[in-house]
């Protein structure tokens, strides 16, 4: 089949007078491992819900695997697998029964189903737990089973909404491996959302950074970080520092950009290590009290900061999105 795996144009979702997703234009190629990166409430899940026909866009549209998400819903559903952000398993069924249920829902006959259940369980290392009730699975195991289930019916495109949310670092790494494995071995196009920088960076071939319902940047993680270019030197200073004093930093050698938020000053600097002494010296000459200095290579966090003027974590702790996300998680955890 010709064309992209997913193409959206002006995709928009309005809830009453609140616009959760606004005019999103995306093109995701076949076989790609694509990431949507953004803070809580950015609209990632809303985009996934529209692309998986769970929500009807209020404006704009999208084509998934050649089918229109509004007019050809069954064909879209036949082409995709989905792992939603919130758990969606039957906890009274075993892992195998959940997979079997799924296979039948997609019209798979007994023989095909059996073989495929075996395959996907192997893929996520859950063969031993197949006969265990879902309610006795750990969070990470449950997530892996959901990923396996999303793959059961050989979808062309697999959507993963926050596949590693709330999991420990080790489980997260395992899940990354499974995702890469199925992208490579099964050739599945993968679209995942995350608000973990490292995840998008490590896993995705291309990343769209989303904030307040809009795409603010889209490229490979490397190219995005190249936009920042230099190293980042972070200074923690006393609150009393004036903007003029901050501005003075931009006059130092090698400093390409200065960015202040509160008592934190970020400097983009070429060859950062060699510049630190000068900067510290210059700062104390200008009367700026420095409490700490640190340096790192550019991350997607810095890219996010550059495009939105805030850190992902800051924008998380504000606004209704955080509360809504928190509440929805509370709701699904209650048993």
């Amino acid at each position, binding site marked *: 089949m010709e064309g992209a795996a997913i193409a959206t144009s002006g995709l928009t979702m309005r809830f009453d007078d609140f616009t959760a997703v606004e005019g999103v234009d995306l093109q995701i190629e076949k076989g790609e491992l694509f990431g949507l990166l953004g803070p809580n409430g950015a609209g990632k899940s809303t985009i996934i819900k529209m692309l998986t026909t769970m929500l009807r866009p209020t404006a704009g549209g999208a084509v998934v695997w050649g089918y229109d998400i509004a007019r050809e819903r069954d064909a879209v559903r036949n082409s995709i697998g989905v792992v939603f952000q919130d758990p969606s398993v*039957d906890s009274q069924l075993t892992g195998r029964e959940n997979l079997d249920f799924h296979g039948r829902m997609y019209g798979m006959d007994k023989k095909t189903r059996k073989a495929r259940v075996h395959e996907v369980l192997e893929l996520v290392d859950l063969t031993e737990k197949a006969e265990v009730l879902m309610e006795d699975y750990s969070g990470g195991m449950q997530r892996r089973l959901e990923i396996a289930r999303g793959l059961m019916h050989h979808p062309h495109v697999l959507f993963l909404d926050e596949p590693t949310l709330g999991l420990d670092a080790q489980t997260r790494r395992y899940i990354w491996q499974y995702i890469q494995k199925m992208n490579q071995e099964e050739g599945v196009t993968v679209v995942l959302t995350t608000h973990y920088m490292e995840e998008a960076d490590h896993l995705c071939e291309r990343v769209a950074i989303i904030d307040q319902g809009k795409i603010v940047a889209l490229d490979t993680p490397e190219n995005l970080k190249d936009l920042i270019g230099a190293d980042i030197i972070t200074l923690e200073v006393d609150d009393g520092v004036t903007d003029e004093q901050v501005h003075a930093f931009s006059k130092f050698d090698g400093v390409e950009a200065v960015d202040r938020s509160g008592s934190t000053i970020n400097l983009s600097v070429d060859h950062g290590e060699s510049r630190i002494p000068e900067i510290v010296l210059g700062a104390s000459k200008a009367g700026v009290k420095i409490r700490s200095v640190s340096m790192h290579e550019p991350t997607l966090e810095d890219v996010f900061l550059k495009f939105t003027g805030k850190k992902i974590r800051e924008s998380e702790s504000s606004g209704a999105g955080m509360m809504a996300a928190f509440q929805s998680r509370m709701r699904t955890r209650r048993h």
Partner: protein
Amino acid sequence: MARMNIYAIYSLWLREMIRFFRLKSRVFGSLAPPFFFLAFLGYGFRSAAMSEIPQEVNYISFLAPGIIGMTLLFSSTFGGLSMLWDREFGFLREIMVAPVSRISIVIGRTAGGVTTAVMQGLIILIPGIAMGLKISGLGGFLLSLVFMVLIATTFNSLGLAFASRMKDMSGFSLIMNFMVFPLFLLSGALFPISNLPVWLRSLSYIDPLTYGVDGLRGSLVGVSTFPLAFDLAVLAICCAGALGLGAYLFEISDVE
């Protein structure tokens, strides 16, 4: 659009079966109230004379079909409302994102809910027989199965209809207490409705379970207020109406 997905229907039905046989304690829990009603009312009123009950029928034979009706009413309404749990715990999304028509989902769920409700009705039949219920014959028993299926389908669909309109679980106990309980008491399951004052009796006449209980009594014991064909016709109409309503409200309901 209204495409039937046989595998999907079977999948949904099978899920209800697995859950039924797995959650034995829940099933026993839900069978306890009808069992206690049967045992205590059955023994307690054994020798009390009720003028409206024909001489040749003992009270337990009168009561047992009523209690079976009660069992069907409660378990099938609950089965329909259990859609709320699926929504709450996210499983509804797994169902809805599959390439399956909504009518197939309704059929699969309802078939599962009806099967489990009828099984529970049949379980209650056993202590009834032990206590002295005399079944008129095989034909009557088979006919009573038809009534059981109709009763269960009617109330399962009503449960589904309510669940499709509710955003969360808060309305659940409201429906159980203010709809299901009155439907049970008005149906004549425990006593002949002719004992009720006229204004209450007219409410009984619009309760579908009244015809269900009367039909069960007629088919199992051979005693009924209305002709069996009439019971069957009224109940079938109620059933078709409820099924249509449930399917329609589910069809237009939002996933999110």
